[in-house]
């Protein structure tokens, strides 16, 4: 059996005042696009930093393609590429020079073709020979992505790769990520744009307060934690109290009584009949698909309540 792309066993990271990770175990298959979601300070970056060897775990183990990141750090690092969350740039050098260095650091003979390919993929070709100081924020972020990928890592960690990148380029990046996966690269990404995770990820993990609260395919999480809803709009506000059978279905009046929202599970005819019986005319009707955002908010709110 080929080794897992990334595997962490009960990873704990304690700082003097806070516990950033409280025992996170995750297994990521080779060739997956895996999204780590969680509120700010949930422990996503700490988890990535430990796997990439930038931070030491207090306890637990992390392996990349079977190489333990502490016992065999050089082998683990050779197969990894990291887009750090914090933008960094070296004002002394141009993007082209920076990419040459980055290839070399990973023991790969620098190749002009590969550098040109990445500059083009990240829309940096016309800035290849200017000082990194002259790049805009979005360009610096893209240069970070190019640096992380230039040596063809087998596992790429992208910590908020599209923060501050405009929408058109973001779509290009998504396509590039899919192309990388098609070539066999495992991608682990964190993002604040839930539509990004929904669009790209094969599996999603939700982390909060340093603990893993859910891992699954987005469609499974949506099915388990998301609720499809039906929404009626009326020609006049409904002022009377809702009938018991609508309340039992979880329906609520919104917008001053001019609309009614109700979770939809299985049979819709009961809701339709009950809504039609209300003392107002239905002028619009639509259903709302569950989104990862709802699921995310529901999952993290649950932790919040427990905490």
């Amino acid at each position, binding site marked *: 059996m080929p080794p897992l792309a990334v595997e962490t066993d009960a990873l704990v990271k304690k700082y003097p005042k806070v516990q950033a990770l409280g025992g996170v175990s995750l297994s990521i298959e080779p060739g997956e696009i895996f999204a780590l979601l969680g509120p700010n300070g949930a422990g996503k970056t700490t988890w990535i*930093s430990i796997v*990439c*060897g*930038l*931070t*030491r775990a207090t306890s637990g183990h992390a392996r990349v393609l079977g190489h333990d990141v502490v016992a065999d*750090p*050089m*082998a683990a*690092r*050779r197969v*990894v*590429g*990291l887009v*750090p969350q*914090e*933008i*960094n*740039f*070296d*004002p*002394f*050098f141009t993007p082209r*020079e920076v990419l*040459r*260095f*980055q*290839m*070399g*650091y*990973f*023991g*790969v*003979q*620098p190749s002009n073709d590969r550098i040109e390919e990445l500059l083009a993929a990240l829309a940096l070709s016309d800035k290849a020979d200017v000082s990194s100081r002259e790049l805009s924020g979005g360009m610096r972020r893209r240069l970070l992505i190019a*640096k992380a990928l230039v040596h063809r890592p087998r596992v790429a960690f992208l910590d908020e790769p599209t923060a501050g990148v405009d929408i058109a380029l973001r779509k290009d990046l998504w396509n590039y990520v899919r192309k990388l996966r098609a070539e066999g690269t495992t991608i682990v990404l964190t993002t604040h744009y839930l539509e990004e995770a929904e669009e790209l990820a094969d599996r999603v993990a939700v982390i909060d307060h340093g603990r893993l609260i859910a891992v699954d395919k987005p469609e499974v999480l949506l099915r388990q934690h998301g609720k499809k809803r039906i929404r009626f709009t009326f020609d006049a506000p409904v002022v009377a109290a809702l009938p018991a059978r609508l309340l039992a279905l979880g329906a609520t009046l919104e917008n001053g009584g001019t609309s009614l929202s109700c979770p939809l599970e299985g049979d819709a005819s009961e809701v339709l009949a009950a809504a039609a019986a209300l003392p107002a005319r239905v002028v619009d009707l639509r259903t709302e698909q569950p989104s990862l955002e709802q699921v995310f908010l529901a999952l993290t709110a649950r932790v919040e309540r427990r905490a």
Partner: protein
Amino acid sequence: MNTIGFKTLLSKETRRFLKVPGQTVAQPVITTALYFLVFGFALGGRVKELDGISYVRFIVPGLVMLSLIQNSFLNTASSMFIAKMQGTIVDLLVAPLSPGELLTAFTLAAVIRGFLVGSIVWMVAAIFTGFSIAHPLWTLLFALMVSIEFALFGLVVAIWSDKFEQLNLIPTFVITPLTFLGGVFYSAHMLPEPWATITKANPVLYMVEGLRYGILGQAHSSPWVGLILTGVLTAVSGVAVWVMLARGYKLRG
């Protein structure tokens, strides 16, 4: 062993200071040339001879030592500290570069800068005082050892420092005083007691004396004393840097 990685880092560190030659090469050369003019020629007229050597010739090894120390220290210290502050250190920390490879590449680039500036300073001085070197091997050996030692020391200080202020603390309060009091511009013999004895605790004195022996062929202390002392300091600094890098001290969280 990541040979390509090591060579890449060495080339990057060397090109970093060559990109700003005005600051990294020309400026130290101008400063040292000014010392040479002011102390060598203006004062030299009054001092005439020291230990049987014309004062202008006497200060040449000290000035070369001054530029070796300052430039090799500054190269590693500024490069490492800037990388930490700008976050580009992450590029090196995630790469498969061992502590030994990082240490050697940073140090070697700094030695190259020290040698570059040191030899230009020597050549400028030699135009006035002559190009002869009494013991070329001792000269090279001292130049090399001292550059390595201060390059390593620069790494220790840069890794340890969290703020610019801390980075400047060591050059201002340790390196500059020890260098100037290490007999760059005078012979330690000229000092009255107790200073003549106190000066003997200054390691830079033996480095300057060592280079003076190499270039001029005479010094007050044996070059072996300087060599052993510098060797011990270099070994201690080397181990310190290696441990800092291997443990990720102030580098890996």
